[in-house]
C-alpha cells in the first residue's frame, strides 16, 4: 500500500527543505518527495496547511517498565509518545531492576516490539545498578541494542569513573548522557536555591551543583574524546560552559526540556508538586538563556524527561514528593506555541531540535525524509488550538505542569515506518 501526503509544508533541514511538497511512502520507506500526481490506488491524505517533518525523537523518556508499571508501561508510554507526535523514544535505564544487562535491554525491546507503535531505543546504565561504583557491561548491552549509556537520576559523583566511561564508550561511538548534579553541593535541596526557596522554607539546590558537573564533563570529554550529552540543562551558567566547550572542540551536546524553557521557580506557587523535578525550575534569566541557546545552536535537542508518577508519589508535601513531570503529550504544542509562534526559532530549527539532532547524537537512521529513508513522519497542525487536559492523556500518570494551558499548534498525525499509528 502506498501513501501519498498531498500539499503539506515539508520541513526537513537534513536536506535543506522548507517548501510545499507531496510525500509518497511505499513499503515503509520514503519513495518520493516533490510534486507528485495522484494515483487512485494510493491512500491519499490531504495535508495542506499542515507541517510535515521527519519523525520526532525524544531522547529522554522514563517508561518505568519493568518495576514501575503503576506509573507507566511500555504500552502506555508508547501510546503517549505517538499521541504527542513522537516516532522514536529513548528510554532511561532507571527501572527496577536497572537496565544494566543485555537481558533487560532485550526485554524492553521485546515489549516494545509487541506494543508495535513507536520505535523504542533503550539506554543502558553506565555503572552496575547505576550505583556509580563500577562500569556496567556496556559492550554486551550495545550488542543487545542500547544507543547510549546514562545513570540518569543517580548522577555519578566519581570523576575518575566518568573519565574511564568516556574513554570506553569510544569503542561503540555512543554518548554518555549525564544528569549533572554534585550531590554534596545540592545538599538535598528540593527546588532551586534562591529567594523563592527561602520564602517557602524549602531546602534549595544550588545551580552550582549542576554547573560543577557540566564543567567536569566538558573537561573530561576534551581529554578523552568520548562523547558526552548533558541532559536537561537548567542553569544559564551551564549553557555558558557548554558553549565554550563546543568552541574548543569538546564532543559535548545538550538538551533542554519544555518545562525548563517555559517555567520558573516562582511557578511552584503554593507547594504545587507538579512543578517539582530534578534539576529544578530556575529563574527568569535562566529561561531567557535557554531561549537564546535554542536559537543560537548551543542547545542541540529538546527532550521531555517524561517522568511519570502517580498521585501516591505526588499528593504529599513538596519535600517528600517524587521528582519529575510528564511531557510526551505536551512537548510539541509547548515548543510550537512558545518557540515557533513566539518568534524564537524557525520551523526548520524546531525540526533540527526535535528530530535531526537527537537522531544524529544517538546515531539512529532517522531524522530525515530523504528518498529511501524509513518513513517516520510527524504531522503538525500549526494553528490547532488546544487546552491541555491531563484527563485526556494516554499516559498512565497526570503529573503535568501545563494542565489548563491554551496552546496553538499540535501534532495531528504520526507515521512510523509508513504506518499511521496516531491520527487526531
Amino acid at each position, binding site marked *: 500500500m502506498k501513501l501519498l501526503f498531498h500539499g503539506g509544508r515539508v520541513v526537513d533541514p537534513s536536506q535543506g527543505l522548507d517548501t510545499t511538497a507531496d510525500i509518497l511512502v511505499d513499503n515503509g520507506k520514503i519513495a518520493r518527495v516533490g510534486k507528485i500526481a495522484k494515483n487512485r490506488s494510493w491512500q491519499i491524505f490531504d495535508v495542506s496547511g499542515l507541517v510535515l517533518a521527519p519523525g520526532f525523537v525524544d531522547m529522554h523518556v522514563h517508561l518505568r517498565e519493568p518495576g514501575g508499571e503503576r506509573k507507566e508501561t511500555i504500552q502506555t508510554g508508547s501510546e503517549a509518545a505517538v499521541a504527542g507526535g513522537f516516532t522514536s523514544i529513548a528510554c532511561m535505564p532507571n527501572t527496577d531492576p536497572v537496565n544494566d544487562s543485555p537481558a533487560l535491554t532485550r526485554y524492553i525491546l521485546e515489549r516494545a516490539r509487541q506494543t508495535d507503535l513507536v520505535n523504542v531505543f533503550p539506554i543502558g546504565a553506565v555503572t552496575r545498578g547505576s550505583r556509580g561504583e563500577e562500569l556496567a557491561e556496556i559492550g554486551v548491552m550495545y550488542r543487545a541494542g542500547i544507543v547510549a549509556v546514562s545513570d540518569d537520576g543517580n548522577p555519578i559523583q566519581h570523576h575518575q569513573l566518568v573519565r574511564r566511561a568516556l574513554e570506553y564508550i569510544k569503542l561503540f561511538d555512543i554518548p554518555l548522557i549525564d544528569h549533572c548534579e554534585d550531590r554534596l553541593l545540592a545538599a538535598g535541596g528540593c527546588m532551586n536555591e534562591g529567594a523563592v526557596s527561602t520564602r517557602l522554607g*524549602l531546602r534549595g539546590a544550588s545551580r552550582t551543583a549542576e554547573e560543577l558537573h557540566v564543567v567536569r564533563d566538558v573537561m573530561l570529554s576534551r581529554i578523552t574524546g568520548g562523547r558526552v550529552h548533558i541532559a536537561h540543562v537548567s542553569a544559564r551558567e551551564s549553557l555558558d560552559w557548554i558553549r565554550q566547550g563546543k568552541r574548543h572542540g569538546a564532543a559535548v551536546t545538550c538538551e533542554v526540556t519544555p518545562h525548563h524553557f517555559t517555567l520558573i521557580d516562582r511557578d511552584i506557587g503554593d507547594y504545587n508538586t507538579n512543578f517539582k523535578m530534578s534539576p529544578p525550575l530556575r529563574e527568569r534569566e535562566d529561561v531567557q538563556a535557554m531561549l537564546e541557546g535554542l536559537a543560537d545552536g548551543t542547545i542541540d535537542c529538546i527532550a521531555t524527561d517524561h517522568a511519570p508518577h502517580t498521585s501516591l508519589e505526588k499528593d*504529599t508535601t*513538596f519535600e517528600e514528593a517524587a521528582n519529575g513531570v510528564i511531557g510526551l503529550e505536551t512537548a510539541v504544542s509547548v515548543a510550537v506555541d512558545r518557540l515557533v509562534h513566539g518568534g524564537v526559532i524557525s520551523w526548520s530549527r524546531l525540526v533540527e531540535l526535535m528530530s535531526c539532532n537527537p537522531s544524529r547524537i544517538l546515531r539512529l537512521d532517522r531524522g530525515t525524509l530523504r528518498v529511501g529513508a524509513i518513513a517516520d513522519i510527524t504531522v503538525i497542525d500549526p494553528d490547532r488550538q488546544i487546552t491541555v487536559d491531563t484527563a485526556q492523556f494516554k499516559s498512565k500518570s497526570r503529573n503535568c505542569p501545563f494542565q489548563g494551558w491554551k496552546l496553538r499548534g499540535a501534532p495531528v498525525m504520526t507515521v512510523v515506518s509508513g504506518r499511521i499509528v496516531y491520527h487526531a
Partner: protein
Amino acid sequence: MSLRGRHLLSIEDLDVQEIELILKTARSFKEISTRPIRKVPTLRGKTVINIFFEPSTRTRSSFELAAKRLSADAVNFNVSTSSVAKGESLIDTGRNLQAMHPDLIVVRHSLAGAPALLATHCKGSCVINAGDGMHEHPTQALLDALTICEHKGRLEGLKVAIIGDIKHSRVARSNALLLRKMKAETWVCGPPTLLPVGFESYGVQVTHHMEEALTDADVIMLLRAQRERQQEIFYPSFKEYSMLYGLDRRKMKWAKPDAIVMHPGPINRGIEIDQEMADGAYSVILEQVSNGVATRMAVLFLLLGASEDPGI
C-alpha cells in the same frame, strides 16, 4: 473585616488591619489568665484538635490552654502512637480528622507546606500553622508583636534586630514578614553560612556584624542555636558562635538603653545568650510565653468567630 472561617497558615495571609485586630483581641484576653477562674464560655461546644508531627511541649500546651480557657474541647492527637507512626499519609490523616468534624486543627510539622496541604484536605475546619519546617510560625510572630507593643506602644519605626540561625528559622521568616508589614525597621544578623539566599526580598536589612545590627536597636530577638542540627558545617563550635553572636553585657551596650531582649525558646544559656542577659532586666522572654496563650486565644476566637464581641 473578619477572620471567621479562615486558615492561619502564613503571616502573608494577614493585612495590617487584621494583625491589629488580633493584637487588640489578645490584649483583651490577657486579663482572663489572671482571674481566679481562668475560663470563659466563649467557645463552648467548639472542638479543637492539636496535631503535632514534631515534638513540642511549649507550643502545644500554649494552644491547649488557649482553647480550654475559652471552653473549647481540645484534643491532642498523639502522632508517635497513632496511625501516622504506622505509615498513614498526611492526606489520609487529614481526611480522618475531617471525618471527626473538628472546628479547628492546630498543626505542626517538620516539612514546609504541610499545614497548607492538610488545609486543602480538611474542608470545613480552620487550620492554624503552629510551625512548618523552615517556612513559618505565624502565632509566634503575633505574640512577639504583642510583647513589643506592650513595651514600646507601637511597631512602626522601631529598630528590631533578629539574631542567629536565620536560614533554618521559621520564627525569623514570620517575624520578618510581620515586622515589615507593620513598618518596623528590621535587621537580620548571623554568620554568612546561616543567612539564606535572597533574604533581602523581605525588605529587611542584612548584616553579619552584631555591632551594626544592635546599634540603637529597640528590640533584640535571639534565635535558638540548634544543637540538634549538624552545625559543624555552618560554624566551627558553640564557643566561637557565642563569641561572635552570643548576647552579653558588652554587646548589649550597642543597643538603646531601654531595649528589650526576646527569645522564642527554649534558650541555650551560654550560647546565644549568657546568664546575665537571660535573667536580666532587659529580658521579656517569660512575658512572651504568657502572651503566647493570650495571642492563641485571640486567634482561636477570631477564626471560630463566636461573635465579634468577646463578651468578657
